[in-house]
């Protein structure tokens, strides 16, 4: 971790900008610039540890962060992967003696703005727009977690995998590679189940496994599978 020179938050920063209905006003951004602390973390650095006392909430300027919970047996469930403009660890700021609800790790090199817990009351007082932006972030997160609960409770691993493959193949132009362990952590299962499910989808000609490539062959069948 390294602290950088004094924060400079402006409209180019993407802070609060993406995936949010509203952005902070120019005045509020200037105000926030005096409160947040810029931080940079290399990929694979654990930024927040579940259960530790909350020190700050973070707003992503560049890079991707994965938020996850870990069982005592070491099994990981990724809750969400976040990108520029999104925030994490905001919930404990609102709680007395709040602890971090989940761990967060830098998936890539990341630049963040940290809003320290002790500065949060001042930030809300000086930048009233901030409360609305955080509430919108909460609403988006609640909707996401509700969908995640439905997936984990009501869909089979094969169904979740089919949906995940469709989302990835239909997603952004940036090619991302996934190991079977990473897929398992995202889908609430173990590597073995991912391997078995991939083989089953292959046997049913919905996908084809090439070297380093999962090729989707049958959209209709995968979409039907994703409903199970």
């Amino acid at each position, binding site marked *: 971790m390294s602290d950088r020179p004094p924060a400079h938050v402006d409209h180019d920063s993407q802070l609060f900008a993406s995936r949010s209905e509203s952005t902070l006003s120019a005045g509020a951004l200037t105000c926030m610039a005096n409160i947040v602390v810029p931080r940079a973390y290399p990929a694979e650095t654990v930024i927040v540890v579940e259960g530790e006392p909350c020190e700050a909430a973070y707003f992503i300027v560049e890079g991707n962060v994965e938020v996850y919970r870990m069982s005592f047996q070491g099994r990981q469930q990724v809750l969400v992967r976040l990108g520029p403009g999104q925030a994490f660890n905001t919930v404990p700021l609102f709680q007395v003696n709040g602890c971090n609800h989940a761990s967060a790790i830098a998936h890539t090199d990341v630049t963040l703005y940290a809003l320290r817990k002790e500065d949060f009351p001042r930030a809300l007082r000086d930048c009233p727009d901030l409360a609305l932006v955080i509430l919108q972030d909460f609403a988006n997160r609640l909707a996401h977690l509700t969908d995640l609960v439905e997936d984990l409770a009501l869909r089979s691993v094969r169904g979740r995998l089919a949906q995940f*493959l469709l989302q*990835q*193949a239909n997603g952004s132009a940036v*090619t*991302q*590679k*996934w*190991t*079977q*362990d990473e897929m398992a952590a995202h889908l609430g299962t173990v*590597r073995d189940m991912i*391997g078995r499910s991939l083989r089953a989808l292959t046997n049913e000609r919905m996908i*084809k*496994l*090439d*070297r*380093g*490539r*999962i*090729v*989707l*062959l049958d*959209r209709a069948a995968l979409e039907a599978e994703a409903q199970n």
Partner: protein
Amino acid sequence: MVDQWTLPEIDLALCTRCGQCVAQCPTQAVEMQATGPVIVRPADCTYCTTCEAVCPVGAITCAFEIAWDKSAF
């Protein structure tokens, strides 16, 4: 674009030279050398991910791109 010879990635800094990947490789594509495990017969590697699964320290990575079959469009 996936190279014909996309192979598992071995992180020699993490590798403990336990030899599990060599012992479990179904096509004997991996050999233990002085520097650590090496895929000496890349044409024999089927990217089955067994080596990744058996590595006790996570030193081997078999990652997949996820993409549509272009011939389907």
